[in-house]
């Protein structure tokens, strides 16, 4: 079942990858002596900050952290939790005490050895209000954290929590060293496969091979350069002309052209990143469930997915993506029911010709198309939607959670709990930012799901959850977007993860 994570038609990775780890180091080494291999990858936006704990937006920031830092745990492309700096972990029966055993002999890029104190420091930093890490909420269940010995760390939780190892794989939980805090934003020091070399804002971020990386045989590349190219027309042209070797996160409108290219190709995976429409359930008229139901009826998810993403997306019910084993395939996603929506609106006393402002964070054509497509549907139901497109940062700082109606989208989270709890539990932080949805039944289901270690139990609970939200959902999760990247045909063995990470540690370039 979990194999469905990767859509088979897309990937063109071969058996070479499997054999690679054993054979390739020997093959590559002489070549590298002759000419350092540099992989240049284009990102559309520049890293906002180099401080892992302070990162707020995914994309380039996460990728930089992924390649320069390590976390306690990591998630593989199948979303399975794997060892990183922690080699193993276990929890007490009540799931309230977790112990992580650390990898010995790991060194930071500046030569300092890594030990449990770094983990303690990092998590204390995450929990520090003044740092303002977005991860603080996820870890607010942590009562205390202690270094049992240099290679053992213990987390004491206030509640039972089964997903702590997955939560520790968050990029904001990248382990930093206290002594390098001063230069964290200018010259960060991590333990990852690549060392930070330099960052010229607006231009590029250069990383080089970490020869002391704790996994053998990696990385194979000498350098990775993250080039900032805001225009995809430009970056695609650069890929075709060989000026860059990869383009991160191609928008759907650029996939088709590159798919036909003779020098480059597209690798596309289904990802958990979702986009949808948000209404604030505490604001009129969305406090009326009839209006919420009417809006749900207006939305033709497959049609919008087609318009917004040209088919490079899958309609979904909740943030749990359709390729997830807990996704309820038996619940029909359905199309638009304009007549039904009209009837409900009339019942709720919404007049025809109602003007509604819809705020949309810009710089994201799919999201703008989503909003435009919705506007078209709403028009048929007699609602005049005016789009208000704002610069994303302005939107997130000033509008998100403050306006009654908006389009929005979030990166996929690693576990069903992380996907849902914050958004739908009445104490959830995103819930209280976005739509203020209060449903004691839902709270009960979510609390139960996070306190059990049994997969069947969780599947049942999350299935129930998806059913409950079908009609009365506070905002509509319309689809999950595929994650597609362009690669030069020279590039081998970049791991494209549905978590929107390009793992360059095993990557190589052929002549």
């Amino acid at each position, binding site marked *: 079942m979990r194999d469905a994570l990767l859509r088979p038609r897309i990937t063109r990775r071969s058996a070479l990858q499997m054999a690679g780890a054993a054979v390739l180091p020997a093959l590559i080494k002489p070549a590298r002596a002759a000419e350092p291999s540099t992989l240049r990858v284009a990102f559309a936006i520049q890293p906002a900050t180099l401080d892992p704990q302070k990162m707020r937006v995914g994309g380039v920031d996460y990728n930089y952290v992924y390649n320069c830092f390590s976390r306690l745990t990591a998630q593989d492309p199948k979303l399975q939790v794997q060892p990183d700096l922690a080699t193993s972990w276990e929890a007490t029966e009540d799931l309230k005490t977790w112990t992580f055993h650390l990898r010995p002999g790991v060194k930071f890029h500046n030569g300092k050895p890594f030990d449990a104190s770094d983990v303690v420091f990092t998590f204390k930093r995450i929990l520090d209000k003044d740092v303002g890490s977005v991860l603080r909420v996820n870890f607010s269940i942590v009562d205390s954290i202690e270094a049992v010995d240099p290679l053992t760390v213990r987390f004491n939780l206030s509640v039972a929590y089964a997903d702590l190892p997955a939560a520790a794989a968050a990029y904001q939980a990248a382990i930093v060293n206290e002594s390098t805090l001063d230069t964290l934003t200018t010259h960060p020091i991590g333990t990852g496969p690549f060392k930070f070399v330099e960052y010229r804002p*607006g231009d590029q971020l250069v990383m080089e091979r970490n020869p002391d990386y704790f996994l053998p045989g990696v990385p194979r590349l000498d350098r990775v350069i993250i080039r900032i190219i805001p225009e995809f027309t430009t970056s695609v042209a650069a890929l075709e002309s060989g000026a860059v070797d990869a383009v991160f996160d191609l928008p759907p409108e650029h996939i088709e052209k590159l798919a036909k290219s003779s020098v480059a190709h597209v690798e596309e995976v289904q990802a958990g990143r979702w986009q949808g429409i948000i209404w604030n359930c505490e604001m009129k008229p969305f406090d009326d469930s009839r209006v919420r139901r009417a809006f749900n009826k207006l939305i033709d998810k497959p049609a919008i997915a087609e318009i917004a993403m040209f088919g490079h997306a899958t309609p979904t019910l909740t943030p749990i993506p359709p390729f997830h084993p807990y996704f309820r395939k038996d619940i029909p996603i359905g199309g638009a029911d304009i007549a039904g929506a009209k009837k409900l609106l009339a019942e709720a006393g919404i007049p025809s010709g109602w003007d509604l402002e819809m705020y949309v964070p810009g710089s994201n054509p799919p999201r703008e198309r989503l909003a435009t497509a919705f506007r078209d549907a709403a028009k048929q139901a007699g609602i005049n939607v005016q789009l208000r497109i704002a610069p994303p940062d302005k939107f997130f*700082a000033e509008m998100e959670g403050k306006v009654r109606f908006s389009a929005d989208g979030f990166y996929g989270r690693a576990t069903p709990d992380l996907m849902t709890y914050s958004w739908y539990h009445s104490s959830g932080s995103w819930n209280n930012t976005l739509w203020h949805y209060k449903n004691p039944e839902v709270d009960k289901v979510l609390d139960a799901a996070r306190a059990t270690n049994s997969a069947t139990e969780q599947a049942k609970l999350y299935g129930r959850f998806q059913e409950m939200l079908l009609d009365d959902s506070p905002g509509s999760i319309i689809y999950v977007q595929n994650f597609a990247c362009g690669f030069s045909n020279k590039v081998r063995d970049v791991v494209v993860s549905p978590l929107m990470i390009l793992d360059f540690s095993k990557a190589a370039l052929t002549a």
Partner: protein
Amino acid sequence: MAAYVAQRLGAVMVIMVAMSVLVFLATHALPSNAAALILGQYSTPETQAALEHKLGFDLPLPVQYWRWASHMLQGDMGQSFEMERPVAPILWDAFGRSAILAVGSMAVVSTLGLALGVIAAVWRGRWPDHAASIFTYFGVSLPEFYWGLVFILLFGSTFHLLPSSGYANLSDGLGGFIAHLVLPVATLTLTLLAHVTRLTRSSMMEALDSMYVKVARARGLPERLVILRHALRNALIPSITVLAQDFGFLIGGIVAVETVFAYPGLGRMLVGSLERQDLPMMQAAILVLTGVYCLANLAADLLYGVVNPRIRYGGSVG
């Protein structure tokens, strides 16, 4: 001449002060809450207030201005809210790259524009004139970013002749350095050329129709000398002012062109900081760009004074 220089310098100083006040007020009128922006989604009113105090946002505006302006004068542009890095090194880095682009474009625009203008004026009403005017008409008929896209498609994507994005360090080789500049410079040139060409054409025509050119012809000078020594020398004087004006348009063009060509310069930095409401970055970028424009105008004024003997040699003889 000394009085002229002093007067121009004084004017520039006054304008810079006025501008810095305007920039300061305008950016402080931004409704966004800087502290909330820095602290992110999980900030509390207390942490915001504490940060506002730390940043001095709770002080009266004149005091804030004074702090900000005096820091600016010392070259301290503050910390980027977003990157938490000092603005100055990032800014000057980007500035240097933009300056290369700007100087390159101005050099091409001025030589090509003057040459085209002179050619059009000398052969007025004939095919070189028409060709020049059609060329320049097309150049200005579309905004920079459009030409940029066309160029990328033609030279970068279709023919793979030139790099369509980015910037190469001079230390990495002259070829790459120049190759990366060709398309952005060509784009900027195309859109700026018309102004210079047309003005040079009309001032050149005015010069060619002038009495002193008639008199120079009456001295039996060959037409080449009449054009180069007599007409051009005078026609160039107004072109200097136009080039300075164009520098302002160039700054606008650079913002768009840097975005299209992924050129890591000041213009892109400015747009980014505006989008992210990164106050210190924004203020510094605007102030520097405006200051550069002022200085360009000052330079043009001074150059104008140097080439124009009326200003250089003020009074009458005797």
